[in-house]
């Protein structure tokens, strides 16, 4: 699960990632801040999606985790809006394993943890953020590394996330705004929570989505981008100039991602039904606090998709 890295000790990890927010102008600290943020992001997602309660989950806990995710999303959005062109930065930190959790599955595909070797502290991490390609070439199937260094870091999926408690529609709103082909990320989102290592194929191209910004420690604007308040603003299409298809999903069947019904905001569930009812309804499960079942939309038969596509387009 950890890949090449040795088992991380509790203390080491604590020293590297814990602690207060550090000034973003500080190079290595900024990277560790980013690592920490990504770690927390991943953990939050896992908490929301991996939970299979027999009883109703605690609303307080859900609300707090949601707020955490929204806050991180806002930060990412703000940082993304400040720097429209950015290099791929250091890969996000491994989420669960270094923290000593036992047998947690890999976190969502679109925000994959880096392998342990990628999680470097100090100067090494700074190196990592400047030359992410070298790190990304750590060919570890478990950690979904990819070799597309040009992949922009801050991308739709984290912003797509706000896992809603009762409805999916606002998440889809943001998906729609951010990219025209949202089903990919939706599917990624669905695939993510229970994606096991066998989904390394479809999971791998998701890797760059998890890459976070933070490669420009000297950027003075980053100081301001750490928000003092975590107001949730309306999502803006700050990534519309990026072509997600090319960058993210090059290795995946793209026929799935051309589905128009998936980009519409409301009534998604019903519109999805002719396409991939089981799979995508399962992805809606977390929002109705039902147990989440893993869905593997990528594995759908291509001919079946084509057929369904014809039906939809024809109607």
């Amino acid at each position, binding site marked *: 699960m950890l890949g090449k890295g040795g088992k991380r000790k509790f203390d080491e990890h604590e020293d590297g990632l814990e602690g207060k927010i550090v000034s973003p102008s500080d190079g290595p600290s900024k990277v560790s801040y980013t690592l920490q943020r990504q770690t927390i992001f991943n953990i939050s997602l896992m908490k929301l999606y991996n939970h299979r309660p027999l009883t109703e989950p605690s609303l307080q806990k859900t609300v707090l985790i949601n707020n*955490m995710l929204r*806050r991180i999303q806002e930060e990412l959005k703000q940082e993304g809006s400040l720097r429209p062109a950015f290099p791929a930065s250091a890969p996000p930190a491994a989420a669960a394993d270094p923290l000593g959790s036992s047998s947690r599955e890999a976190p969502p595909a679109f925000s994959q943890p880096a392998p342990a070797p990628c999680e470097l502290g100090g100067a090494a991490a700074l190196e990592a953020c400047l030359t992410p390609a070298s790190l990304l070439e750590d060919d570890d199937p478990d950690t979904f590394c990819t070799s597309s260094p040009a992949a922009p870091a801050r991308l739709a999926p984290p912003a797509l996330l706000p896992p809603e408690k009762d409805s999916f529609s606002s998440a889809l709103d943001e998906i729609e705004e951010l990219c025209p082909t949202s089903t990919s990320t939706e599917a990624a989102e669905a695939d993510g929570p229970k994606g096991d290592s066998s989904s390394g194929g479809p999971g791998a191209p998701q890797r760059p989505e998890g890459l976070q910004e933070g490669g420009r420690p000297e950027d003075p604007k980053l100081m301001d981008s750490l928000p003092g308040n975590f107001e949730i603003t309306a999502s803006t299409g700050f990534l519309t100039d990026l072509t997600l298809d090319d960058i993210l999903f090059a290795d995946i069947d793209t026929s799935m991602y051309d589905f128009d019904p998936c980009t519409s905001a409301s009534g998604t569930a019903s519109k999805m039904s002719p396409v991939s009812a089981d799979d995508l309804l399962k992805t809606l499960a977390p929002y109705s606090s039902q147990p989440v079942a893993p869905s593997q939309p990528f594995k759908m038969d291509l001919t079946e998709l084509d057929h369904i596509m014809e039906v939809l387009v024809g109607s």
Partner: protein
Amino acid sequence: MGEDTDTRKINHSFLRDHSYVTEADIISTVEFNHTGELLATGDKGGRVVIFQREPESKNAPHSQGEYDVYSTFQSHEPEFDYLKSLEIEEKINKIKWLPQQNAAHSLLSTNDKTIKLWKITERDKRPEGYNLKDEEGKLKDLSTVTSLQVPVLKPMDLMVEVSPRRVFANGHTYHINSISVNSDCETYMSADDLRINLWHLAITDRSFNIVDIKPANMEDLTEVITASEFHPHHCNLFVYSSSKGSLRLCDMRAAALCDKHSKLFEEPEDPSNRSFFSEIISSVSDVKFSHSGRYMLTRDYLTVKVWDLNMEARPIETYQVHDYLRSKLCSLYENDCIFDKFECAWNGSDSVIMTGAYNNFFRMFDRNTKRDVTLEASRESSKPRAVLKPRRVCVGGKRRRDDISVDSLDFTKKILHTAWHPAENIIAIAATNNLYIFQDKVNSDMH
């Protein structure tokens, strides 16, 4: 089930491994009654166990009255919500005693959805000498009855009878986290994550909603109610705390729906301590009015704070419970410990406050001397009637002999529920499935 309750105080030395603990035995709430004579505990299995303080015996004048099991009953049963296909836990979330108005004792116990009023009565006499029935209750052969007799009451072994008098159901969509009896002794309130209802103790089919923070669109929900309590003296005032660390004091005279607070108590965030987890650790897990009614005590993840009702801007006192955890918040978030809801308690004179922590530690803070102490509630570390030894958690640097290092703290041993006798220095500590009752020795140097 009666025989199981005694295991709480018996030292089962072969059960040291906590993994043998039956989950149903985990104590989920502890509450003294208004005189301190009775102590009620609720557990995850829906049972309530009431302990009674034995009157001080003349034989051993230096040993103050100890608490023995008085009664045990099954308060709540697990239920199933068919609409949502989810179980409703029978775990007792809170117990609150009603002020005693006659020979019987009454208490309210609640799980996530339903509140019940229980009446506890004693029977220590029974009538004997019936004309038509014999001692076992069988009908007598009338031909053997030659004279009439008046039944007389004869003493019998004490029998404690508990009966449910009211069931307040279907008042809450979300999980009930608090109940509080009003000082008018007629009404009480119950709070769930988004709403607070006012009930009359005698009316079960109707309740009034007095606070509703549910947003029109649930996606906009960012804050929930975490605890609430009536003012001890003013029957129109109550306070509720939120997951964002704010307290709202509401006056029921102002409006029927008290969404608009009369006072908002909120401490501005300390920018130097800001982290990803600032909001989560600021979530108030418990709020308690002082006995005087002048102050409020709140517990968030790392601190306890004393608020003056006259000052909304910030608490007047802040005590660090386990600040050494501040650097471990990420891990605590990952293993969910950061969501643990610790309770807090005042002593009878409002001079000392107490709260629980991890590793079966609990902390007490003297507001006057500003001294604090950390104590441990465990069988291994203390023999019965031995004075508790103060513990210390070392955070690096110099380490004394008996110090515990932060990394060796057991986060599964958490003391969430504590209670302080209303008048004396007797405290009840719930450590997982064990209940510890500590009494203050007159010659101890603790307080």
